[in-house]
């Protein structure tokens, strides 16, 4: 699955669409995705020219988001996020362990397993890799699809694709 299909399935857009490609998928069970990291990522805009490599470690927050979007692709499938009156929310995580970092030039690979779906909430687990290095293990990540009215106080916005 390439970006045109990913954009049909996920509501996130540039610069916060953090899945570049789906490598493999076993519907309802497992998905493998990738996200390439480059020095032109917006998160590096403020890094000083004299900064050490550690300052180029890709932020854990964005790695979690990228993993979560991969989990959403697995959960919602290729039909994805078609309901314009719903919103996809990250609602929690347990035991997200950082084991290493990704740097510009790395391709992060997420391996995500769908553990459970209860009503409008999905639970996923897995790992993230940078080449042969495992950089994170994820005990549990939770996402939910909620009606827009339950989330927003503003009038329902137009959806553009």
């Amino acid at each position, binding site marked *: 699955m390439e970006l045109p299909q990913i954009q049909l399935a996920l*509501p*996130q*857009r*540039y*610069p*916060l*669409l953090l899945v570049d490609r789906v490598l493999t998928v076993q519907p309802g069970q497992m998905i493998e995705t990738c996200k390439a990291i480059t020095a032109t990522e*917006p998160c590096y805009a403020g890094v000083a020219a004299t900064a*050490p490599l*550690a300052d180029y470690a890709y*932020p*854990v*927050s*964005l790695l*979690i*988001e990228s993993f*979560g979007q991969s989990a959403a692709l697995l959960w919602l499938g290729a039909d994805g996020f078609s309901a314009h009156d719903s*919103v996809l*929310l*990250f*609602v*929690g*995580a*347990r*035991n*997200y*362990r*950082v084991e290493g970092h990704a740097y510009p030039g790395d391709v992060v690979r997420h391996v995500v397993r769908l553990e459970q779906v209860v009503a409008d909430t999905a639970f996923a687990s897995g790992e993230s890799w940078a080449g042969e290095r495992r950089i994170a293990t994820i005990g549990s990540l939770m996402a939910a699809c909620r009606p*827009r009215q339950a*989330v*927003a*106080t*503003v009038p329902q*916005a*137009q*959806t*553009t694709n």
Partner: protein
Amino acid sequence: VELVATVEVDPDDPNLRGHFPGFPIYPGVFVVETLCQAMGEAFGDNGVRPALREVKSLRLTAPLEGGDELTLTATVTPHEAGWRVRATGTRRDGKAAATVTALFDRVVA
């Protein structure tokens, strides 16, 4: 040690334009980012930096829309060679938006 960090949720921030188009909601993972930056400000020193090791628990209980403000209040205690942090985030209306428990390593560059 208690840390307090506040973040304005700017609906014109490029990140929020993509999350989501026409419907800006503060990305929940940015609670983790805010915590990391606050720890860096509070405990980062010449050659020493706090590095997130584990998010033990993160719960996002209420979304923040564009224009809102997140106030993150964290209690930091020494843990092994680093820190254990327990933080709660509230919206401007006082509603609890997030709770997070995390471990940070003390990394010497």
